[in-house]
């Protein structure tokens, strides 16, 4: 007898089980070309060069985020929050497709091509989604992303996009598991059972329960650590820099009218020709990797060399400089570096880079004149079920206060391995 459930076994969440008839539309989206493409786009781009296990794809993450929002919505519903079936369906759909507009190696891709994944996702919703799920209009789903929700449903917007949204919950756990970096782990179950819907200025928003204070602390600490241990790892960034230089060189050569053998799907991109949506969805990690393999054989020495370096994991090395004191130092340093490269006949443009990763782990939300996040608000419920007034999470946590609105930065310089020691000496890095 055919099962009326569809099941996906997920390494992070265990069995993901849905009623196949009730949620047939989700299956239709999962089976679509645009969504299946996410199997061919790694969640963490180039990170697998540093953490070999980081081969997981945006496909798994998207389904994971959908599962989390389903679980949380059901939890709230069981606790008395009203929700129509139609709204539940839209919410699941929004969570499922939230990353569909990502390009391959997104971080670099978006810098070089100016294609923003959020904009591409919205374009997909407007132009393609209703072909796959005719029962929903793109407009209805787009409204969730713009947080155009009634006051009683504002919490849905928070679950889709806030500092404690399902996207973040899933990717922290998933990235932690696949990289093997334990810092990303947090007490998901406790967080889960310490979220609620509460009234804030006449709207129903996501609030945290005081009983989950330490779990939420763990969540934000996990976020902070993952950024500095994984996402901003110096070697991951070195790989991204190299990829960027390759793209830059391709762009320059094509701009000069020279012939560069690359994957045909990318050709228009590098000469500034806007892509049709269908063309965009032909791009995946394989497109980029095949292009780099071709570029390794290029007659252009720089492109060939950079491509070889990428494929053989010969990334630029990091010379970390803690701080540039002032403009005089900047200009002096730059002068020294340029002379160094000129003397050796090496292109400074393609064989040197600086990077200044930065992150705020607990942000001050935008309030005032615009509708949006109402802050990281907490409520205490006593054993008699009586609720306290809402208060700011940071008021109860020294740990979170230490991260609140603090911008953590690093400054790094990169050069090929063979130049590292000399360059460090010249710059007084020891």
């Amino acid at each position, binding site marked *: 007898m055919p099962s009326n459930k569809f099941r996906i076994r997920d390494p992070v969440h265990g069995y993901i089980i849905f009623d196949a008839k009730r949620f047939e539309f989700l299956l239709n989206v999962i089976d679509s070309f645009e969504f299946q493409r996410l199997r061919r786009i790694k969640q963490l781009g180039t990170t697998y060069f540093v953490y070999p296990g980081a081969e997981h794809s945006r496909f798994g993450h998207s389904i994971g985020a959908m599962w989390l929002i389903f679980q949380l919505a059901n939890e709230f519903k069981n606790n008395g929050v009203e929700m129509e079936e139609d709204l539940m369906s839209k919410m699941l759909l929004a969570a499922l497709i939230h990353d569909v507009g990502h390009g391959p190696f997104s971080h670099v891709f978006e810098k070089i091509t100016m294609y923003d994944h959020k904009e591409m996702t919205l374009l997909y919703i407007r132009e393609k989604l209703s072909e796959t799920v005719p029962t929903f209009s793109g407009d209805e789903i787009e409204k969730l992303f713009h947080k155009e929700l009634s006051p009683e449903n504002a919490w849905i917007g928070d679950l889709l996009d806030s500092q404690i949204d399902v996207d973040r919950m899933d990717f922290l756990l998933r990235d932690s598991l696949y990289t093997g970096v334990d810092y990303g782990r947090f007490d998901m179950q406790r967080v889960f059972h310490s979220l609620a819907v509460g009234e804030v200025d006449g709207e129903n928003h996501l609030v945290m329960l005081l009983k989950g204070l330490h779990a939420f602390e763990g969540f934000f600490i996990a976020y902070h650590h993952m950024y500095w241990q994984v996402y901003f790892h110096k070697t991951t960034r070195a790989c991204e820099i190299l990829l960027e230089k390759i793209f830059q060189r391709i762009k320059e050569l094509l701009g000069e009218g020279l012939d560069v053998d690359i994957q045909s799907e990318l050709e228009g991109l590098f000469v500034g020709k806007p892509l049709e949506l269908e063309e965009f969805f032909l791009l995946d990690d394989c497109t980029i990797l095949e292009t780099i393999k071709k570029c390794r054989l290029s007659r252009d020495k720089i492109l060939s060399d950079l491509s070889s370096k990428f494929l053989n994991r010969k990334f630029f090395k990091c010379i970390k400089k803690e701080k540039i004191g002032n403009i005089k130092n900047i*200009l002096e340093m730059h002068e020294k570096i340029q002379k160094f490269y000129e003397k050796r006949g090496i292109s400074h443009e393609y064989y040197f880079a600086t990077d200044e990763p930065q992150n705020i782990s607990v942000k001050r939300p935008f309030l005032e004149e615009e509708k949006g996040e109402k802050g990281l608000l907490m409520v205490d419920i006593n054993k008699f079920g009586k609720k306290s007034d809402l208060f700011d999470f940071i008021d109860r946590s020294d740990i979170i206060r230490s991260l609140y609105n603090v911008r953590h930065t690093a400054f790094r310089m990169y050069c090929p391995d063979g130049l590292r020691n000399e360059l460090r000496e010249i710059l007084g890095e020891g």
Partner: protein
Amino acid sequence: MFEAYTKIALAVDACKGHVEGRKKLQKMIYIAKVLGYPLREDYTLYLYGPYSEELAGELQRMKELDLLDERKLDSSYSIKITKNGKDLLNYFQTNIEKEMGIEKLNKMRTLFKELGYFDPWQLEILATLFYFYQIGYSDFNELQRIVRKVKPKFSPKQISTMTEKVRMFIEKFAVQQ
């Protein structure tokens, strides 16, 4: 990194060395980026208005390095380019010229100058219009409709006026990436 700072310095310098506040600068950079100029800051769709955490960090850093000076005036901030900022601009401008070409660079400078004349509220509407234009609302009536919906604090006339500016900016300043 230095190129990023140089372009920001150029934006402020183009406005006679002074921009009213970080939000205004955020919108100016965003609009220039949408029009095709090579500005690499990642923008997030934040509550119908584009915002770049990266740019915010760069502005902070430029302040620490005394490339920009920021003063609080009543309810807003004033950002001025310092002498150090001008030195940086002069030093790295050749790099930017090489990257973009002199013609494109001058066009970008003129764009910043013209954007600098708008009040912050006008740029808020303009950036929102450009955001929705960018995601496929290319019919200008539809564009106005959606922006009226998401920015109810502005009148239809204000939005309509700024929609005409979108047309003008695209015709006059849009470049191939």
